[in-house]
């Protein structure tokens, strides 16, 4: 039976539509990496036989994908804090654990609070005079403030008995370069700042953290953004560019994931840091979970609770690798560059890469993903209709 529509066979109409399909696919691919490379693709295999009713009714591949996502998905896994296995479950180990608790809360914690308080006293008694009295001598003031910020960060790290092993050449302040690192908790910043006074770009936080951000961090040249403001992105992009091109600014540190991830995975990097025309120096950070899980699950705890948790554990042990600076290759887009650097960092720190945008914690995925699935199914239907 041959269908005739407007005096032309059906196949003609469908062929005309086919060419339209191919142009739209190139538009979709322009601005994002190929998610299909990451996602399980074995489900929707399109055979090349003639289309039958059975093929249209059989929606099992799509349903299986949906059910698979309900049962387990790679995005939620990135933000799961995995509590360590309890080891104190028998009569010999339990008293040891109790002793440990007594030591941690009764001896270590007060000592650490003391160290931190001491650090703050020293810091403030040096910082305030320097900040106020040296108002005119900017260069000297900046240098002293930098040293003081590094000092208070060292005190913070000491207050968690932080054992940080730095690998690789220390960062130096040069124009036209940015540093990017994977993000597990706000303490990433402190761990890195202890070694080099970076200027960082951060979400503005409420409370005492916000106060610190607007006073002390301002002096190292930090940039603030607000995740919920849409127009904010252009303003921030401009500020980033200005900072990188300035000669006198502290080296800029960016966390391109945009959110804290649980140190087993990396989510997609935002391309903002990679289209500034600067050299990108990757930094990989990996925490040793035996001592403490440093992941800050901002949905579950406030930063204060997180810090207290760190101060009552045995130690914070981590490795920091300063990796080889990367430049954008000719013909590489910003997104490809970001993914390449993410690959370098993930390989060094032993993290798995997932194809999701960290901001999906706060918003829905764009319809582009669903549309690409629809498109490939539509193409297959039309192609198979033509088969004999």
């Amino acid at each position, binding site marked *: 039976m041959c*269908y005739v529509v407007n005096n032309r066979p059906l196949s003609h109409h469908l062929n005309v539509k086919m060419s339209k399909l191919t142009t739209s696919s190139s538009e979709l691919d322009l601005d994002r990496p190929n998610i299909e490379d990451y996602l399980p693709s074995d489900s929707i295999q399109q055979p090349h036989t003639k289309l039958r009713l059975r093929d*249209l*009714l059989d929606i099992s591949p799509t*349903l*299986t994908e*949906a059910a698979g*996502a309900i049962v*387990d998905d790679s995005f939620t896994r990135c933000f799961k804090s995995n509590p360590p296995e309890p080891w104190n479950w028998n009569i010999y180990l339990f008293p040891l654990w109790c002793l440990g608790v007594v030591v941690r809360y009764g001896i270590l914690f007060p000592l650490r609070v003391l160290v931190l308080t001491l650090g703050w006293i020293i810091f403030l008694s040096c910082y305030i005079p320097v900040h106020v009295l040296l108002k005119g001598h900017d260069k000297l003031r900046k240098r002293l403030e930098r040293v003081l910020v590094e000092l208070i960060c060292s005190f913070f790290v000491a207050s968690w008995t932080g054992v940080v092993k730095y690998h690789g050449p220390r960062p130096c302040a040069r124009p036209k370069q940015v540093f990017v690192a994977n993000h597990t908790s706000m303490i990433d910043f402190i761990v890195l700042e202890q070694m080099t006074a970076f200027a960082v770009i951060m979400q503005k936080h409420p409370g005492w953290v916000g106060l610190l951000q607007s006073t002390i961090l301002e002096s190292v040249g930090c940039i603030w953004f607000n995740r919920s403001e849409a127009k904010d992105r252009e303003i921030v992009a401009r500020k980033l560019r200005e900072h990188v091109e300035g000669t006198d600014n502290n080296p800029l540190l960016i966390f391109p994931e945009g959110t804290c991830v649980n140190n087993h995975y990396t989510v997609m990097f935002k391309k903002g840091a990679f289209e500034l025309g600067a050299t990108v120096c990757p930094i990989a950070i990996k925490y040793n979970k035996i001592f403490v899980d440093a992941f800050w699950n901002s949905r579950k705890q406030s930063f204060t609770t997180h810090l207290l948790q760190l101060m009552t554990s045995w130690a914070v042990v981590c490795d920091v690798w300063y990796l080889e600076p990367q430049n954008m290759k000719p013909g590489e887009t910003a997104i490809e560059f970001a993914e390449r650097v993410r690959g370098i960092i993930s390989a060094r720190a032993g993290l798995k890469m997932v194809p999701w945008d960290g901001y999906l914690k706060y918003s*829905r995925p764009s319809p582009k993903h669903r549309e690409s699935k629809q498109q490939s199914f539509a193409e297959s239907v039309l192609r198979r209709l033509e088969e004999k």
Partner: protein
Amino acid sequence: MGNTSSMLTQYDIEEVQEHCNNTFSQQEIVSLYQRFCQLDRNSGGFISADEFLSVPEFAVNPLAQRLFRMIDGLNFKEFVAFLSAFSSRATLQHKVEYIFKVYDSDGNGKVAFSDLLDVLRDLTGQFISEQQRELVLTQVLEEAGYKKDSILVLSDFMKILGNSDLKMEVEVPVD
């Protein structure tokens, strides 16, 4: 089953297992419960729209809206029963019934041309015109011996999909 505690008792597990006709093992039910609690962030005892759509892999699925109407507001027992069609122990009959239910959105046991069109529209989006969709569907229906205004019931689905190698299985991660 209380939604205040996140501990399942042996009695609860057996009740759920019976409800889903033993398609899941007890270990799988415990894993599914952990997953349910993980998704049910506000501990309301059921997973809401927002919580399902916060799983990006689910939200980008073309049939998410359709499935969503079936799973909205399910408690844990019903959640497991919903997923039971995807177990390796589920019968082919069960799986075909499930697919039928996805098509039969008003639940009257009949799937009409409009229902078939709706699902095809979800799967192909804007990439085929409405007119072409109707033509394609009419053509394959007629080739299979039905007419455009035929009403399909479960036995039709069994006939069409029944003797095929329907692969609809999801593995529940058990640690």
